[in-house]
């Protein structure tokens, strides 16, 4: 699959450490690419440069091999964009805004727009000014997806959505991915990236921290298991004898967390055989866990 979105040594310095510094990445056709970072880490600045709204100080970015700064007009009809801060033109109702947007994009057939409106259960006849945050977000999503774009740039697309709508959005993104769209989304919600993203780029203070492939992520890594014991005495007894890596002990909830290497499961069962345990379960690997374990504890900081 070819690279659709490319960023090379993208740099935008706003002074006092803010901005984006020497950021390189690419997003392939049919790929969902996640951009994760704390507030002010440069996610929005990156997306704005891709949209051609902001000129990089140095480095470059392109979409469909067209430079984002110089010729953004050439690919805009193939790009869907959800801005981080949403405000609509002064157009009255949601419906008239969506109609105008279709005109801008040259969309004649409004059937798909209707489908999207139904999918998000959007009351598009409501006046734009009186819409709640979630309603505005849904309107912005319909506006971004309505042209079935080949590229989607989504800046925290699930902001303000209820959990049900978040799932709907996840499904929609997966559908677009399957269709072959290149999706770049920034997010705080790890769950939706977990469910959709093929690769995730972690950035902090505008610099690349880590790039992980979610598919191959779990392969070589230790797995986390949680074991529930019947009593605190059992826990003490286990801790005395075990050779496993215990990462966390909770005596109130009577459980311990164990990090198990790829072929250490047998050893775990062996050690546990003398105990009366309540449960044993694998804790699914999440980006959130990765983020807190690896990034925030500074274990893998390599700027």
């Amino acid at each position, binding site marked *: 699959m070819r690279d659709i979105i490319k960023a090379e040594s993208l740099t935008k310095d706003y002074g006092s450490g803010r901005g984006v510094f020497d950021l390189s990445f690419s997003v392939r056709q049919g790929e969902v690419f996640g951009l994760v970072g704390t507030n002010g880490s440069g996610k929005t600045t990156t997306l*704005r440069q891709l*949209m051609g709204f*902001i000129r990089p100080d140095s480095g470059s970015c392109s979409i469909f091999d067209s430079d984002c700064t110089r010729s953004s007009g050439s690919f805009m009809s193939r790009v869907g964009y959800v*801005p981080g801060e*949403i405000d*609509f*033109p*002064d157009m009255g109702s949601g419906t008239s*805004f969506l109609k105008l947007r279709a005109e801008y994009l040259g969309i004649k057939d409004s059937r798909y727009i209707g489908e999207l409106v139904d999918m998000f259960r959007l009351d598009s006849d409501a006046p734009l000014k009186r819409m709640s945050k979630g309603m505005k977000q849904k309107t912005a999503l319909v506006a971004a997806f309505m042209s079935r774009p080949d590229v989607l740039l989504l800046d925290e697309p699930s902001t303000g959505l209820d959990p049900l709508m978040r799932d709907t959005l996840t499904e929609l993104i997966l559908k677009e991915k399957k269709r072959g769209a290149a999706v770049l989304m920034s997010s705080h919600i790890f769950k939706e990236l977990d469910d959709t993203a093929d690769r995730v780029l972690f950035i902090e203070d505008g610099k690349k921290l880590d790039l992980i492939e979610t598919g191959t992520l779990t392969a070589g890594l230790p797995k986390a298991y949680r074991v529930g014991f019947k009593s605190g005495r059992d826990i003490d007894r286990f801790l005395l004898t075990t050779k496993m890596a215990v990462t966390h002990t909770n005596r109130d909830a009577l459980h311990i967390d164990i990090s198990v290497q790829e072929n250490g499961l047998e050893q775990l069962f062996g050690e546990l055989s003398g105990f009366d345990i309540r449960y044993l379960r694998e804790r699914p690997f999440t980006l959130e866990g990765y983020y807190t374990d690896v990034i925030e504890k500074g274990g893998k900081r390599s700027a």
Partner: protein
Amino acid sequence: MLSLPLLKQSIKSNSVMWGSMTGVMTLLCVQFSSLDMTRSLLFTIFYGMMTTILPGIYVLVTANKLLASQVDRGSMAYVLSTPTKRSSVTFTQAFYLVNSLVAMFGIQTLAHLLVNRVKPLALGELAYSSLAGELTSKMILQVNLSALMVCIALAAVCFMFSGVFNSTKYSIGMSGAFIGVSILANMLAMFGNLGVEGLKNFKYLTLCSFYDYQSVLAGSTDWISKLIFPAAIALAAFAAGRLVFARKDLPL
């Protein structure tokens, strides 16, 4: 170059302001030109002040709404995330601004022409004037053309500020100061014309001095050569706003 959806959007979102200003200006014009009480002041008050104050307020608010406010609020993202280029955004918005003024003056002029046909005005009736003859339709057209050109220049300067600044407070602030000074200096200079010597020099502080209804009424051609300056200023200001807007960073 011209984006039709954007033009439609601009017409729709500015219709209230445009409609009310056009309505007020036309009503005032009809009132001043038809009522015996006010006819003598038709030029001193209506053409002397209202034809710059009312369009001045309109262009101050509208120019800001056309660019700066949409960038500030973020809604410009919805225009620029379509195949609409920045250069066609500025072209379309400037096109709207100029033509909305043309329409505003057009309606007002039409109303005045009708009133003047029904109830012609003798120039001798006018206060502070020693002219003879009747106010002709041609004169009405010429006076309004002169006023329109100055208002287009005012609009262009506000449009430039709107294109330069990303935030409404600077755009409105600079445009407001500019329009305020222009209108105030024009009024003071008018008192200067009416005999208060000390206020005469205020005419050098305002673009409105290029609007010369007295020359039209007196039958001289001064007003025609005075059209060149506001036209040149308008072109330069529109070009500057367009250039900056096309190159600057937009927080969208």
